[in-house]
């Protein structure tokens, strides 16, 4: 491979990686937020993403909505689902050992996956193309307009989330709860409400990701959330879990690493490489790229 074509390939892979990474980032945003507030690895988050995709499917095919209303519908429905899940499965366990809540989260994840299989059969469904994809061909480099939309949405949502968390009263309450739940409660913050809101926000983000990704890939099935959910969590940890820009950064890094490994090595080692990088980063910077090292006070 000569230098020119190598460079050309490299840039194309970079584009592929960033576009894939923005999907991970989109899911990771909600993941990281929920973790930030209640320190729960919400394994069901990937399934909320799936749920969002199905809500979008219902909205576009059965209710005949166009893209934006369908997106809003899916986000709202997923927010409700998120609140219900938190209320039923996680809230009663707030003082339980964390590993027990984790098992509950795994249970919820199974329930959503196989409940959906029961309702919608395991067959994949095709998601209607609600807006057309234009393929731009710039100097031999291929970019799809949908890729740009996904990356743009991820950036916008990240910015919005950062604004909500840093500049609104609700965000202040969230940060307080995340910092010290008991103290926040003593200061008159209704932590139940804050946590519900976090789940609603996180779940609607996942749903937005679900709808966008379904439009992009065109196909949805009840187990579609398993792998992306896992990858998004890895991305969140990579960037520093609980940190919103960290989720974005982690997602993009994961995507680029996967694209580069697939492109210049072998796609079968793609996931191994992604996990390998995560472990290396954890060993050198245990709290993730943007995380602060917190030392237990002795």
């Amino acid at each position: 491979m000569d230098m020119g074509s190598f460079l050309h390939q490299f840039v194309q892979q970079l584009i592929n990686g960033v576009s894939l990474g923005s999907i991970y980032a989109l899911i990771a945003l909600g993941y990281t937020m929920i973790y930030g507030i209640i320190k729960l690895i919400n394994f069901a988050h990937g399934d909320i993403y799936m749920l969002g995709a199905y809500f979008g499917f219902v909205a576009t095919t059965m209710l005949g909505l166009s893209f934006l209303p369908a997106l809003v519908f899916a986000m709202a429905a997923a927010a409700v689902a998120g609140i219900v899940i938190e209320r039923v499965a996680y809230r009663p366990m707030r003082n339980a050992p964390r590993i027990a809540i984790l098992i509950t989260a795994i249970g919820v994840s199974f329930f959503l996956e196989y409940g959906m299989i029961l309702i919608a059969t395991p067959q994949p469904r095709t998601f209607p193309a609600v807006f057309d994809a234009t393929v731009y061909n710039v100097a031999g480099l291929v970019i799809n307009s949908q890729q740009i939309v996904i990356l743009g949405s991820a950036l916008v949502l990240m910015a919005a989330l950062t604004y909500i968390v840093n500049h609104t009263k609700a965000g202040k309450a969230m940060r307080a709860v995340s910092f010290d739940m008991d103290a926040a409660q003593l200061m008159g913050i209704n932590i139940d409400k804050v946590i519900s809101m976090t789940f609603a926000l996180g779940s609607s983000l996942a749903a937005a990701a679900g709808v966008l990704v379904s439009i992009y890939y065109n196909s949805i099935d009840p187990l579609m959330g398993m792998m992306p959910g896992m990858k998004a969590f890895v991305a969140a940890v990579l960037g520093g879990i609980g940190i919103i820009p960290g989720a974005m950064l982690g997602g993009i890094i994961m995507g680029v690493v996967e694209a580069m490994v697939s492109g210049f090595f072998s796609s079968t080692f793609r996931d191994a490489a992604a996990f390998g990088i995560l472990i290396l980063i954890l060993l050198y910077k245990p709290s993730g790229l943007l995380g602060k090292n917190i030392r237990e006070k002795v």
Partner: protein
Amino acid sequence: MNNIRKQDIMSLLGCFVLFAVMQLLIMFEIIGPFWELNIVLIGINIILSVSLNLINGYTGQFSIGHAGFLAVGAYTGAIITVKLGLPFELALIVGTLCAGLLGFLIGLPTLRLNGDYLAIATLGLGEIIRICILNIEYVGGASGLMGIPRETNFAWVFWVGIFVIFFIKNFINSAPGRSCLAIRENEIAAETMGIDTTKYKVMAFTIGAAFAGTAGVLFSHYFYIAHPASFTFMRSFDILTMVVLGGLGSMSGAITGAVLLTGISAFLAEYPEWRMVIYSITLIVLMLYRPQGLFGNKELSLKMFKLGGDNSGRTAEGK
């Protein structure tokens, strides 16, 4: 001290009786082949959950990569018997040692991490192991390693299981085991009490990984095949669920968890469509009502349960 010896001998006798009864039931086909298969599966799962309990429950290190070590045992064992044509007993030993060695190599760097970070790192390592196996054509790659003879039977699983249970029980009731408990309770205090925390964490991790390897050898030599799809992170979750459901840090709990979940799964085979839904609801409900697991970190005591049970765990014996 004679008391301890006496207790050990009594439990061992209990095991013999239990074994004889079960073996007779199987011989006279009162337990049919389907339940025999599930009893073997329960036995393998007990080895897995008890060994994971040593890492997660007793030492307090949150590991969810157990399926990786299971895979290493399954494959190395199969290489010994299928590829090299050596006896099954050797496969058991080599499979155990290989998984243990890998556990040691992985544990050394990663056990510096704690909590969720360790969890995600072990999860990743488990997947890396699986992906590597998937890419080794020598062991069949994605098609799996086939043609493995069925060497495992109830007797093997039973006695290996008893061996593992006794091993871990005695470990926990010794100075190194108590060091592990101390690390779980308070790592900083443990270190200031003169405990080399890294050493004992790695020790527990290695032992746990090694026994997962043992389970792997038994597994692949019962089901004729070692296939990468059997060792995904979902399998790790399964094992973790057994341990947590039974009660972290409880031997009786780990055993009960394995029996219960394998049993539920076998029973629900009647209702394939609903199986996972019922399973997941059961999981959620049990966790909601017993977040500390069925046993908490307590043990069944000899007084409560005379036959075969052993009062392993945290309490000082033989006073």
